[in-house]
């Protein structure tokens, strides 16, 4: 059976710090023969800490343009300063690269052509070898924007590699929030895995994340992580969202996850020392099986 169109699963959360990367690293290590891993949390990528990637390719990412005022030609009419809507030109008529959005208005208004727009390298895309297979990841230069565009490049590349390596599934680690980079990580995905935590903040953010995947018509499975911090709210989440998710799971809070991280391992690569930890591992394996079933993934190996 040849893989022509690999499926895509994206892990998102709305709320930050609920355990996306910890969970996806476990799923990736368990399903490693059938997946390409993509770290789309481009301004705070963490999976490299678990999987110690060896870079095989590295490309510059041009996110947009930045304006540059050539002082030798500038007649100091201040038209650019007055026109810029992003406050990106200082009183000394210098472009602040962190504020410049590369729109080009200053270039157009300048009466003496003293302003040029130049391609701006705002990050890097990497393809790497890891112990669980190929990983595509990226690094957005701190302070930059257009992270959504870089996320799209990561996903596109991961899909290409999945076809090349005949892997039926691309696993995408998304970023927190619901804005541009998250939207770029879920559009066209076959399934979303939404991770939440049983807190007031968690429910609030979950509502918005669920609304987002609904808008983009991506079905989802739900994982309530650290579920035993508040059993009441866990029950409330399962009740409110149970019917909207394809499946729901709970994982209790355990420093097992941190221990795995400190050892540069996924939770499924560590020896369980207690029944609670073994149960966590079983749930993660079950989630993997459900993902394969829902996406009709037939193991190629």
């Amino acid at each position: 059976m040849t893989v022509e169109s690999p499926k895509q699963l994206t892990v998102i959360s709305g709320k930050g710090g609920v355990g996306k990367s910890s969970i996806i690293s476990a799923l990736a290590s368990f399903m490693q023969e059938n997946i390409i891993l993509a770290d789309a949390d481009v301004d705070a990528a963490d999976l490299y800490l678990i999987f110690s990637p060896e870079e095989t390719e590295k490309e510059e990412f041009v996110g947009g343009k930045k304006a540059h005022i050539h002082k030798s030609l500038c007649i100091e009419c201040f038209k650019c300063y007055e026109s810029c809507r992003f406050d990106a030109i200082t009183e000394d008529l210098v472009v602040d690269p962190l504020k410049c959005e590369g729109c080009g208005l200053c270039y157009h208004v300048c009466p003496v052509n003293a302003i040029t727009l130049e391609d701006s390298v705002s990050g890097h895309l990497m393809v790497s070898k890891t112990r669980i297979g190929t990983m595509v990841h990226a690094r957005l230069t701190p302070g930059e924007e257009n992270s959504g565009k870089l996320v799209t490049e990561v996903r596109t590349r991961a899909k290409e590699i999945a076809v090349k390596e005949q892997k039926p599934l691309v696993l995408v680690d998304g970023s927190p929030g619901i804005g541009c980079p998250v939207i770029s990580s879920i559009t066209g995905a076959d399934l979303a895995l939404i991770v939440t935590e049983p807190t007031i903040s968690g429910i609030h953010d979950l509502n918005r994340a669920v609304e987002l995947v609904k808008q983009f018509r991506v079905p989802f499975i739900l994982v309530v992580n650290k579920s035993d911090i508040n059993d009441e709210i866990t029950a409330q989440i399962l009740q409110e969202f149970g019917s909207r998710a394809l499946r729901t799971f709970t994982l209790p809070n355990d420093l097992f996850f941190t221990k795995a991280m400190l050892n540069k391992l996924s939770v499924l690569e560590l020896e369980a020392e207690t029944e609670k930890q073994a149960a966590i591992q079983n749930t993660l394996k079950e989630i993997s099986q459900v993902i394969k079933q829902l996406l009709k993934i037939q193991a190629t190996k």
Partner: protein
Amino acid sequence: MTIIAVTSGKGGTGKTTIAVSLALSLENAQLLDADVEEPNCKLFLPIKPSVVAPAEIPIPVIDNEICTHCGKCSESCEYHALANMPFEVLVFEKICHGCGVCSYVCPEKAITESPRKIGEILSGSHNSLLFHYGEMLVGEELATPIITKLKKFEDQTKPFIIYDSPPGSACPMVETVSDADFVIIVGEPTPFGLSDMKIVVETLEKLGKKMGVIINKDGIGNDEMEEFCKAKNIPILLKIPYDVKIAEAYSRGIPLIQAFPEWQTKFVELANKIQEMIKNDS
């Protein structure tokens, strides 16, 4: 007036916990929640906020009667938000940045601008605490313009203005901290926490910001974060131990200083320490 921004890099380290408790501990402060994608401060405050302003982006409106389909507008748009079709020019509203280039370059002056709502600014108060937050509409792409709008509601009469920043180190965070006198980075002492903190520190160094670190969930991981701070000469302002009881109170929407009143004096000391540090540096 001292502006303090609370950032993190990694999500879920405790920005909101700290921003809320810091603002509540101070007499006469303003709290602004700039995490417009997922604004959580409101969940911890006994405030019923109301909308004070919409957040809008000016988007082009093309008069198809005057338009000659020369294509200059779509050629000039750096975001590919315009498409010059045979019978009309299509505007892809959600990716339009509201920069004004298309209306400027149109040789027929066929383009005007109309505001499109992408979010709201809400506000309320409790005793002497003034609270504002921005909330992005679900499905919108751009958080930064909403943060820019939120910043216009700073109350200059307040001695302390506290910002709860979005996570990460990209454009929304940069916009939030750009006028801050001091930035608190909240970190969790784990490998993920440290990795993300380093990225934020790099960004703040680029911006020339004074910074300090609060280590939250102390004891959960290792000492590498503390060693990093020492090596970079970044002061560690406070350490909050990992405690399931703190997590449990947080889960119920109870601010730290309410569940554990002994922390109130520590937050007041924190604010004073920060003011000292700002004074000493200038």
